[in-house]
């Protein structure tokens, strides 16, 4: 019977002690599955240099946030699906195997979603340009109240 221990360490965990997250942050953003979605958004015409720079900075910031968020989301998902018992303190081989496959599968899945999404966006942009060119009404964008 071991003594009760506070689940939260007394010291504050320094950010540097999270090697994986720091590795992800240090990486260039183009590996993230969400990147294929951001890449498909395309440039907006008619913005000043300053606005464009602000946009680039904002997009980078969002990519970072998205990367970290999806990291935690993936852990949560694979833990939920793969870990059931707490007989031991360490992950069993079966659990480790399940988690690896889960993470692998989800990453590939998200990348594919991003690709399809990007293609769809591109098609919509082309249709909008064609409609505008022929003088017809442009199709409604996805966001209500924001025609493309």
């Amino acid at each position, binding site marked *: 019977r071991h003594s009760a221990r506070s689940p939260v360490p007394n010291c504050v965990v320094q950010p540097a002690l999270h090697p994986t997250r720091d590795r992800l942050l240090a990486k260039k953003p183009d590996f993230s599955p969400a990147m294929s979605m951001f890449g498909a958004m395309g440039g907006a015409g008619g913005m000043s240099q300053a*606005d464009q720079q602000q946009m680039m900075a904002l997009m980078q910031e969002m990519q970072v946030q998205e990367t970290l968020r999806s990291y935690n989301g993936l852990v949560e*998902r694979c833990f939920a699906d793969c870990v059931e018992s707490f007989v031991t303190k360490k992950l069993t081989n079966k659990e480790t195997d399940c988690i690896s496959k889960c993470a692998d599968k989800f990453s590939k899945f998200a990348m594919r*979603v991003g690709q399809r999404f990007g293609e769809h966006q591109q098609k919509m942009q082309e249709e909008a340009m064609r409609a505008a060119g022929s003088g017809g009404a442009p199709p409604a964008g996805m966001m209500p109240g924001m025609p493309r």
Partner: protein
Amino acid sequence: RPPPSSPPLSTMQSPADSMRHELAFYSDLFGKMTNQCFKKCVSRYHEGDLNTGETVCVDRCVSKYLDATNKIGEIIQKSAEPPQ
């Protein structure tokens, strides 16, 4: 045909603001779509790669999800218009 007169999201935003909103919107859409389609298309973790059934499912799921998004956007847009 003129655009609707009172959309729920006023187009009187600065380009930077509307760009920010758009980025946030699409980021959220992407996350939700990925989660929903994964839930519906993947049930087992036999291997790390996507099998044929899963790839077909994800492509169709994305298509349907975006269709639904468009459809709902139209409905929201319509309900925000003043009565004719």
